[in-house]
């Protein structure tokens, strides 16, 4: 996801507005034709350019590749007055019964890489968000901006920067050899390790933002109470802090996991021949093999895997929204 600073400005706003005075709740007024006209523009745009494309790739995934323009077979044909609808399921069956198991393995591998990277982001991001949320307001502003600024710079450039320091004669190898931990440079680029580092680095801000927003709203008197009642810090953390920041944890994890599952650029630049993730497969089928129907089928299956996390994320978003209304 090269979405620049993306990850949800709403989290920042929510965080900073947490302690504001509630304003009067706006009641939905009576709807007029004018409201419907207003709805129509964004609604039609999203249906035409977001929903319709998915119906089209579903349609294309049911055809077969052909040397023609466009390079796939038509679904509906007319021959001697008879209308024929031919639905090819070959693409789907070939994905699952492929002899090398390339597709299946790359789905599993993508799930593993996205899952572990999400975990790394969570482990690194939680302390950062906590440190940000609990420091003095003046310092917080500066540090907050410093933490999210890298995500405003170019995505490819950030990955490129890791290529330069993970090279054989790059900074990391130089330092490790200088200290004397290793004798000869280790191969870091073109390994799975580099892919994990790249994904964790690029997606970290998307994890920190929602966590930060959740941690800003934590009732710290409950933490104090738990200490006073004799709980150890570890127990306090799991029994008080984690439940209070649950929505932030889920939202952050989804913001990392879902886009990371289809990541193409990071495995392509940092990963080796073995880091065949599903995003790369889709890209290859499309650009190198020009097999549009198969690429579409790969995308549809990825979408099916992602339905549950997306709905989860969507529900959290809605719940937060309703909570805000309830507050006012």
């Amino acid at each position, binding site marked *: 996801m*090269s*979405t*620049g*600073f*993306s990850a949800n*400005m*709403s989290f920042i706003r929510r965080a900073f*507005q947490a302690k*504001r005075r509630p*304003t*009067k709740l*706006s*009641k*939905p007024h009576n709807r007029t034709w004018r*409201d419907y006209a*207003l*709805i129509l523009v*964004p*609604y039609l*745009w*999203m249906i035409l*350019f*977001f929903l*319709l*494309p*998915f119906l*089209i*790739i579903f349609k294309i995934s049911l055809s077969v590749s052909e040397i023609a323009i*466009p390079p796939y077979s038509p679904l509906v044909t007319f021959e001697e007055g008879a209308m024929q609808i031919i639905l090819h399921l070959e693409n789907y069956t070939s994905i699952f019964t492929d002899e090398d198991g390339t597709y299946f393995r790359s789905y599993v591998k993508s799930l593993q890489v996205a899952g572990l990277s999400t975990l790394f982001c969570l482990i*690194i991001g939680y*302390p950062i968000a906590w*440190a940000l949320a609990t420091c003095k*307001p003046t310092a917080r*502003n500066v540090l907050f901006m410093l*933490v999210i600024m*890298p995500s*405003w*710079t*170019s*995505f490819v*450039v*950030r*990955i*490129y*920067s890791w290529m*330069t*320091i993970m*090279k054989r*004669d790059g*900074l990391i190898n130089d330092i490790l050899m200088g200290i004397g931990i290793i004798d000869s440079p280790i191969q870091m680029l073109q390994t799975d390790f580099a892919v994990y580092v790249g994904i964790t680095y690029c997606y970290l801000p998307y994890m920190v933002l929602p966590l930060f927003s959740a941690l800003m709203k934590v009732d710290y008197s409950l933490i104090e109470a738990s200490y006073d009642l004799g709980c150890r810090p570890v127990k306090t953390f799991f029994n008080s802090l984690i439940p209070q920041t649950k929505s932030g944890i889920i939202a952050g994890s989804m*913001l990392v996991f879902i*886009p990371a599952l289809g990541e193409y*650029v990071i495995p392509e630049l940092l990963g080796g021949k073995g880091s065949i993730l599903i995003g790369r497969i889709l890209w290859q089928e*499309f650009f190198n093999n020009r097999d549009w129907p198969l690429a579409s089928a790969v995308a549809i299956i*990825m979408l099916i895997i*992602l339905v549950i996390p997306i709905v989860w994320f*969507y529900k959290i*978003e809605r719940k937060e929204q309703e909570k*805000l209304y309830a507050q*006012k």
Partner: protein
Amino acid sequence: MRKNKSLIARIVILACALTFLYLPILMLIIYSFNESKMVTVWTKASLHWYYELFSDSQIGHAVLISLTVAFMTACASVVIGTLAAFVLVRVRSFTGESLFVLLITAPMVLPEVITGLALLMLFVSLGEIIPWFADRGIFAIWIAHVTFCSAYTTVVIRSRFRELDISIEEAAMDLGAGPIKVFFAVILPAIMPAEVAAFLLSFTMSMDDLVITSFIAGPDSTTLPMLIFSSVRRGLSPEINALATIIVLIVSIFTFFAWLSMVKKQKRMASDAAKAAKAAKLEQQRSTFHSKI
């Protein structure tokens, strides 16, 4: 004691985090001033690669395309985002609202390869009916970018909309202002900061997008990220270091201004709160004074 410990912990955590985040970028900047073609061997400080960069006409062309698309995208997605935010906050609970919210949320998280492929298939299919869609130039890229940027602008503007006090709008209506006048005279000035933030956000995202654009773009419309990607794929090049340094410089200037406006806003909020507290205190003193009499 516990407080001291947690302060030290915070400093250590943030120092590590900032090192992790900035070390790679810092190295990139340092080596952009290196004369050698080897990206990792330091020879002599020079501006050689900046000179190379500015005399590269291909990069100039790509920057121009990217800036054009980003500007058009930012304008359109702010308009769509404002409409969508207005609908979601003011109209609310209309038929098909949940589908609408889903359509606005999904582009933010969906893997870009899927969105890119889907949009390209749409353009190809539409191209069969309307040939205009078939040559995938700047406008096709623009449509794709507006689609995913609108999701973000909606979120940003919506959260500002929620803070608005509807009674001001009602007052304006009662004084005889029509809905269009109310929008331009009352609502728009109030949501202006969010509009600016949304504009900048979609501008950067459109400037930065690689995967979706690679699917959509025809041969003549190579954007800046596509150019960087293809050159990085061929290997390390100091020219990219120079380009990266310029990007980081521009972004940090903007970040500085964003920080400045944030500080200003918080100061204003704090002084408002202080004034309110002072007024309340005065009022209380007066009432106790009166009750004593």
